[in-house]
C-alpha cells in the first residue's frame, strides 16, 4: 500500500561560507565586537558630519571670533549653546571635532590604500621574480624601514610644504615599505607551493599568476597589517599636524585642534585639547582592537 502521508522535506544542509564562520569566530570576543561597532559609528558620524553638526567649522562666515574660548556648556552672547565649548577662533568644538575626524579617516584610509597598492605590487614582484629584482627592491625597503617613519615624514613635509595632499603623499611614502616586506614574506612561502608550479606549467602569463593565484593566498596577514596601519596613519597625521607640518590651519584635523589648544593649557582652558584628543584616542583604540582581534584569528601559530 502506498504511503499517502505527506513526506517531510528532506533536511537541508546549512552550508556555512568561510566568511560566515569567520564572522562568527570574530564575534567570540565582546570587546572586539564593541570595537567594530564603535569604528562603524565613528565612520558614519564623520561621513554624516555636514548634516548633523550645528556649524561648518571650515566656513569662515559661520564662525564668530567673538564667540571664542567659551567653556563647554556655555552660551554665546546670542544664546547659542556650545556643548563642548569653542576654540580660539570661535569654532564650535563639537563640529570641529567631527570634521576633524572625517579628515583623519580620509587621510588614514586613503594613504593606507595607496601604500598598500604600491607596497603589495613591489613586494609581490620581488617575491615572484626573485634574483636581482628581489634584492634591489628589498634593499630599498630595508633602508627605508631602518629609519623612523616620523623623521622621514617630517623631512618630506618640510620640503613639500603644508597641505592635505602632501600629508597623504608623506604617509604613503612612509608606509609602502612595510607592506612590501610583509607580503614578500608570505609570497615567498606561497611561491613554493604546488599550485604555482601548476599555473606556471599551464603557461599562464606572469601577471595573471601573480594577481589571480599568488596574491589572494597572501592576504590574511595583510588584512591585519593594513587595519593596524590605518590607526598608525591616523596617529601619525595627528602628530605631524601637531608639529605644524601637516594640514593647513584653515582645515584643522584633530591633531591641529590639539595643537591649538596646547597654548591654553597652562591657563586651564583644557577643552580645546582634551576633547579632540579623547576622540582621537577612541578612534585609534577601536581600530587597534579590531586589528588585534583579526590577528588573533588569522595567526596560525596561536591556533591551539
Amino acid at each position, binding site marked *: 500500500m502506498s504511503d499517502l502521508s505527506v513526506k517531510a522535506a528532506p533536511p537541508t544542509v546549512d552550508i556555512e561560507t568561510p566568511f560566515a564562520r569567520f564572522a562568527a569566530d570574530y564575534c567570540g570576543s565582546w570587546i572586539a565586537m564593541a570595537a567594530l561597532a564603535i569604528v562603524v559609528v565613528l565612520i558614519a558620524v564623520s561621513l554624516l558630519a555636514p548634516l548633523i553638526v550645528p556649524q561648518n567649522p571650515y566656513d569662515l562666515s559661520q564662525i564668530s571670533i567673538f564667540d571664542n574660548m567659551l567653556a563647554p556648556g556655555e552660551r554665546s552672547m546670542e544664546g547659542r549653546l556650545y556643548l563642548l565649548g569653542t576654540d580660539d577662533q570661535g569654532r564650535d568644538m563639537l563640529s570641529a571635532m567631527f570634521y576633524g575626524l572625517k579628515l583623519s579617516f580620509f587621510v588614514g584610509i586613503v594613504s593606507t590604500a595607496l601604500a598598500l597598492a604600491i607596497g603589495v605590487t613591489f613586494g609581490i614582484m620581488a617575491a615572484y621574480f626573485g634574483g636581482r629584482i628581489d634584492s634591489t627592491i628589498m634593499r630599498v625597503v630595508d633602508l627605508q624601514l631602518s629609519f623612523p617613519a616620523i623623521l622621514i615624514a617630517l623631512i618630506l613635509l618640510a620640503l613639500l610644504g603644508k597641505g592635505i595632499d602632501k600629508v597623504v603623499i608623506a604617509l604613503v611614502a612612509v608606509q609602502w615599505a612595510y607592506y612590501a616586506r610583509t607580503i614578500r614574506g608570505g609570497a615567498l612561502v606561497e611561491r613554493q607551493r604546488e599550485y604555482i608550479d601548476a599555473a606556471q606549467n599551464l603557461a599562464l602569463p606572469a601577471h595573471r599568476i601573480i594577481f589571480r593565484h599568488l596574491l589572494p593566498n597572501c592576504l590574511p596577514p595583510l588584512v591585519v597589517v593594513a587595519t593596524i596601519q590605518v590607526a598608525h596613519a591616523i596617529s601619525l597625521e595627528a602628530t605631524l599636524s601637531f608639529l605644524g607640518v601637516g594640514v593647513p590651519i584653515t582645515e584643522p584635523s584633530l591633531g591641529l585642534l590639539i595643537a591649538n*589648544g596646547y597654548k591654553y*593649557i597652562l591657563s*586651564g582652558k583644557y577643552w580645546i585639547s*582634551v576633547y579632540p584628543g579623547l576622540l582621537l584616542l577612541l578612534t585609534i*583604540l577601536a581600530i*587597534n582592537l579590531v586589528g588585534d582581534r583579526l590577528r588573533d584569528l588569522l595567526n596560525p601559530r596561536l591556533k591551539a
Partner: protein
Amino acid sequence: MVAFLIRRIGQSIFVILAMAALVFLGVFLIGNPIDVLLAPDADQIERAQAIERLGLDKPLWQQFLIFLLDLARGDLGTSFVHGTSAVGLILERLPATMELAFVALTLAIVVGIPLGVIAGLRRESWLGRTIMTGSIVGFSLPNFWFGIMLILCFAVTLQWLPAGGRGPTGSLFGVELSLLNPAGWPNLLMPALTLAIYKVSLVIRLAYSGTREAMLQDYVRFARATGLSPQRILGVHVLKNILIPIVTVLGLELGSMIAFAVVTESVFAWPGIGKLLIDSIARLDRPVIVAYLMIVVALFALINLVVDILYSVLDPRVRLSDTGN
C-alpha cells in the same frame, strides 16, 4: 666573532655613506645649495665668496668629496639662526635627548618585561587581562596628547611637577645631564614617561607572546621533569629565550625613540635635538637640518651595530653559525 664584527662595521659605514650621498644629492643637486647653506639675506658679495669657499663651481664629484671630507672633520656649515657650527649645536643638545631616550628605554624594560611575563603566565586572570588591555591603550595613545594630559593633570591641576623645560643639571666630563642632579629629576619625569608609554606597551606585548610561546616549549617541560624550581625555569630558561626578540625590537625602537623625541621635546620644551629640529624647520635653518640628519644616521648605524652584537651574544646559534661552523 671578529669576522662578524668587521663585516657589520663595514655594513654600517656603507649605510652612513649611502645616507651622506642622499643628503648630498638633496642639498647640492635638487635644492639650490646656496639657499640651503647660506642665510637668505646674504648679499651678492657674500654669495660670490660663499660659492668660492664652498667650491660650488667645481665638478660634482669633487664637491661630493669635499662634502665627505667636511663630514669627516665634523664641519657641516654654520647655523643661520644661532651663528655657530651646526654640528656643534647638535652635539651640544644631544645629551639632553639621549638621557631622555635612555630613561624611557629603562622604564620600558623595567616595567614592560615583568608586566608582560606576568600577563603571559596568568593569561586568563583578571590581572593578565588588565595588563593586556592596558597595553593596547598604551600604544593607541597619541604621544603628544598624552604629554599634554600629563601636564594638565600634574602641572596645572595638582601642581606637583613643573610644566616644561629642563631643570638643573649636573656635569660629568663637561656633559650636562639632568640625571646627575636630583633637583632636575621632576622635570625629567613627565617627558620620559610620555616617551616611554608606547614602548612599554610594545615590550609588554612582546614579553607576553614570548612567554606564552616559551611555556609551550618542550624544554620547559623537561626542566620541570628534572626538578628545577619555577624561579630558575623562568629566570634563566624562559627569560633568556624571550630576551632575544625583545632586544632586537628595543634596539630598533631606541632609534625611533630618539626620533620621536621630536614630539615629546616640543610638548615639554625640552632642549634636545628634537626641539632643535622642529625649530630649525620652522625657521628654515637648513645647515642644522642637514647636520641633524647626518648625526642621526650615524647614531642609528651605531645602535644597529650594538644590537647585532648583543643579539649574537644572547643567541649562540647566530654567533657560531657566522664563523662557518
